[in-house]
């Protein structure tokens, strides 16, 4: 497991991502894009890691004849299962599209900057 620490308390979670000495190039005009790229790439790696882990589980279950990989591949949910999965997928899409959706809705909202609202409430 990757949960232990060294005896003298080196915290690998905190230490592993230490930056290398040397100024990092700025690839984009907006630093937010550099940061977003780093986060996105790390997430892409973790999706790959998860898939590989799931693949390991499937192969082990198959080898022990508990669940055949073929059965996973050919699985067709019943009506209730299909509905539950549909709901889960729909909710997932809503989560990852929250930013765009809210930005779209803001286009038709009649709202003022928060500073103005604070001033309004202060005097309310």
């Amino acid at each position, binding site marked *: *497991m990757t949960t232990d620490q060294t005896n003298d308390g080196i915290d690998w979670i905190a230490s592993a991502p*230490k930056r290398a000495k040397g100024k990092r190039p700025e690839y984009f005009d907006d630093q937010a894009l550099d940061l977003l790229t*780093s986060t996105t*790439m*790390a997430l892409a790696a973790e999706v790959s890691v998860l898939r590989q882990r799931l693949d*390991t589980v499937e192969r082990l279950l198959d080898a022990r004849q508990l669940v055949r990989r073929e059965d996973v591949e050919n699985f067709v949910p019943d009506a209730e299962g299909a509905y539950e999965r549909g709901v889960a997928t729909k909710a997932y899409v809503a989560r990852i599209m929250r930013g765009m959706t809210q930005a779209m809705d803001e286009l038709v909202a009649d709202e003022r900057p928060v500073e103005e609202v604070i001033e309004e409430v202060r005097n309310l």
Partner: protein
Amino acid sequence: MKHKVPPPYTAVQGHGVFPKASHDEAARYDFLANFNNYLAVRLSAGNKRVYDKRVVPAFIREHGRPPETRTEVRLAMNKDPWHRFWSAMKRNSMEMRQHNGRQIALRQLDELDARARQFNEGRATLQLDPSVEIPRYQAVNDIHCMPGSYHGEERPGDISTGANYDSGFFATTAGMVGALSDGGGVAIAEWAKQQKPGWKPRRILDLGCTIGHNVVPIALAFPDAEVIAIDTAGASLRYAHARAQSLGAKNLTFIQMNAEDLSRFPEGHFDWVQTTMFLHELSTSALPKILKQAYRVLAPGGLMLHVEQPQYTEDMPLYEQFIRDWDAYNNNEPFWSVMHDLDIPKIMEDTGFPRESQFETGVVAIVDEKIFPKAEQGAAGEDHGRAPVWNAYGAWRPQ
């Protein structure tokens, strides 16, 4: 069809101090190996495409002429959104590799250090000298974005930096330097045996050995030779020695010292002096100084060999120079660009090797082809800076 895929990280060969990756850490390296491959092979054409279609035409519109230096190419390319994104991804893949390798090494550091002590304590084949200073060209930044560089420590006396360095070779080279990441050294040893069948060098010196992955195969191939490997980084040498001992290289001594001063060795002491991917991590003054020292300690009839990536020459297209130079500006290799412009044969001539004693040769990593893909020399879309295909500058010192 059968797809070409990098070998899985689980095919990596361990040794006495190799850090063990968890299931997910190995999977993370698998992602990186495939990702790097995609950037280097599938997408390499994209950089050339934006260069030809957008960057050069825009440059001509602005300056009335095409770019004339690789610096002009680089500055122009760095404005292109596609190239920017490609560079950002490549830089991130380097950083992710370091993050994963450090995680692997640090979380099991107690055990790794304990195992290293068993190989290292009281051994004459490991000679550390804490008074050796890290040269400025090594300390100015962390070379190839490895946090802490070759001399880094998480705590005094540990082997974290070597363990991290060793664990990640596979990901950055997509397995093309073999299960022990020693395909370069194996190739050099085999080349030497072909050049001089029956050769029995008495003493061999490897300069800037880091964790010794290239010198171990040489020591194993020439078991009767006394092999000495030096580096300024004691942290890497602790790992190197333990690694070499566990792999059975008992005729190999690691000494912490700076190659700029080899005065502790008598003149003509070695039959073979060599460096592997070392010259590009020096400086303008250090490089000729080291080559001069190396010449002094080489015996008449002996072999000098420097393995590097190809030099930039006037006939190398500017675009190729630019793309080969990526590591200089994006992967903390501050001497890479300068070094690859140097006239190495001229510098070697100045140290004492007549031109007719010199040669250049190609070196391709030798790997177990059942598991690992063989590098194709000159293959389209090589991962410049990490390709397992090198250029060797050498000379046999006249008798």
